[in-house]
């Protein structure tokens, strides 16, 4: 094998996405299509495949699942809007799962019923995801479509890009990135619990979730080091916060927060 015989398949795929083209690899023997593209055919084992353009493909939705709770991606949602996880079926391509954007997630149950009863089709959509373009999906029909607030998404994207740029330049605190694990979290010196009702509520929720007395807790309390590393207790605490303050801190977000001050700041950020 010579260097020039090793075509860059993955890079080729992403380069094509930058040009608005979606590529797969078609088996020269059986016609099966590998999407995303791989070297050999997984249908018949043939070692020879060739590029094929797939922009016009339409997929049938086989299943849809919510992306909340432990199984979603808060950052992806913040940058791209609410989404569902879907199974997709396309002739000559192995079934795969991906993300469905621009969908009315408030009508999830109704949407699932529709998927069960009739054929629901989706079309590919190229979006900017972090520092690369990726393929996600949107509905062909309008019935369950719901566009997010594009201005809010643009603002979130701008803030994200600025944070990443600052991070790269080493000019930002880990708190601003939502990643306080590295710093050990905020001690909350700027929060006066006596006069701050949100801080009081967060302390109450933490005491309930971790089964400790409120008097043992301060803004500097680290939930893992000082209380418990049991995930279940943290989940109870953020459920309580959601109930008391109507603010959702997703499990993955909470996983990156350490002190109670971090939680207070996160609640305030989201209010």
């Amino acid at each position, binding site marked *: 094998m010579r260097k020039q015989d090793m075509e860059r398949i*993955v890079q080729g795929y992403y380069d094509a996405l930058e040009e608005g083209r979606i590529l797969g690899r078609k088996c020269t023997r*059986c016609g099966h299509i590998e999407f995303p593209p791989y070297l050999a055919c997984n*249908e018949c084992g043939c070692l020879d495949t060739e590029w094929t353009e797939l922009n016009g493909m339409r997929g049938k939705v086989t299943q849809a*699942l919510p992306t909340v709770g432990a199984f979603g*991606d808060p950052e992806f949602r913040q940058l791209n809007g609410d989404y569902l996880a879907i*199974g997709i079926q396309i002739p000559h391509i192995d079934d*795969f799962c991906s993300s469905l954007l621009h969908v009315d997630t408030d009508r999830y149950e109704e949407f699932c019923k529709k998927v069960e009863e009739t054929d629901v089709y989706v079309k590919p959509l190229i979006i900017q995801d972090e520092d690369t373009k990726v393929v996600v999906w949107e509905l062909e029909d309008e019935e369950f479509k719901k566009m997010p607030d594009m201005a809010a998404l643009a603002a979130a994207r701008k803030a994200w890009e600025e944070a990443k740029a600052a991070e790269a330049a080493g000019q930002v605190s880990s708190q601003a990135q939502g990643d306080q694990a590295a710093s050990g979290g905020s001690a909350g010196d700027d929060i006066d619990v006596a006069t701050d009702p949100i801080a009081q509520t967060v302390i109450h929720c933490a005491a309930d979730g971790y089964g400790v007395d409120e008097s043992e807790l301060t803004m500097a309390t680290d939930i893992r080091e000082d209380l418990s*590393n049991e995930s279940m207790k943290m*989940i109870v605490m953020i459920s*309580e916060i959601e109930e008391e303050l109507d603010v959702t801190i997703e499990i993955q977000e909470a996983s990156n927060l350490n002190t109670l001050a971090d939680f207070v700041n996160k609640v305030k950020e989201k209010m």
Partner: protein
Amino acid sequence: MSFNDNIPKLKPYKRSVSIIGVGATPFVRVLDDREVYGLTEGEFFGYAALEAMRDAGIDGSDVDFFVHGQAGPGWISNFGTANIHVANWLGMKGKGSMHQSEACATGYVALETAVDYVASGTYDVVLSGCIDMPYSIAYPTRVLTKRRFGTDAIFHETLCSTVTRDYNLFTRGVLPFSSESWLDAYFKENNLDAETIDKVMTNMAINCRRAAAINPLGLFDTNFDDLAEEYGMDSAEEYLHSKYNPLIGKYMRACHFEQRCDGAAAVVVCPTEMAHKYTDHPVEVLGIGHSCIEYSTPLLEKLATANAYKQVRELTGLTGADMDLFLTNDFFMQSEMLAAEECEYLPKNKGWEYMMEGRAAFDGDRPVQPHGGRCQYGHGSSASGLHDLYETVRQMRGEQGETQVKNPVNYAMIRGFGGGQNVLCTILKNNG
């Protein structure tokens, strides 16, 4: 035609292989438990391996080769060549060894690898062990008694590392599918209403925790009734529907997800023809089916389970219905119902009834997970698969005390699952 049609048939082993010894440490949380605080990977592996050797009536001089398993030694211990890190603990210095790492499937591959070494004729006596400390992880360069919490944030990164990153990004769509798609499809296929689904999920948790709480190796010693009482509630059901057990997905509550912990387990195998020289209760490995399908495939757990089961069924001529006991990796608790039904241990479309009625509990007539499984007994990553094997072998011998299943266990099936994504289906025969 699909990729599933390309799954090969298994061929019989060149020589039959039997299990002659098993060992396991308790599942613990080292950083939270003064009794075990400070224990290291080498000690855990060593205690499990030495117990397995003692159980087989042998010592380090009798073992020809050992296999080391750790789900991801780089994540947890900052080990390269992880087998070398435990090699001096076993009385086997200088002998050959290897490391294998298949995330949560590691403990199931551990048996497969050891069996293949013996079946091929290369070695006669092989020890295979797994150690993981995902709750109490090591610092990259400090001595191993100094540890830090394996937090949810760190755990999430390790999960991401099991997903191919050429095209897939972890939580964008694949995680909800790998966790709940099979369950969702199953409930729809069986037309179950929300109330029934809730009862199935609740009873599964109650029965698993009931077993785990009385298993001396389990992580917890309280059942859900105890917890309800502690929180001033009337019943386990009330507790499991309270804020202390919130929904974390479409169907799963917090109690339906794995409980990370630290531990190890080990097994010793040898040719079946030699087994009675060491023990009067050998367990023969009849076959191990194995299928891998990565995360982007919908219903991958179901597809890979069907593939692995088909392989071992065709090799052995035995079905799930012939088994007396079924264990499975269930870091999503529903896997115990879904896999048991897919492997025909429970009748088609009736698994949910068995779960709801307690018939699959350790004291039921078709026991599944008599130790309580990953969500209640504990999940020590790689060590879990060999804990399943330890439990199965001891159930076959009738040694499991309070959680001993009612009927004799002549045949058992273990369905392994984990990694990105690896399914094994093993059939064992009690030759004791």
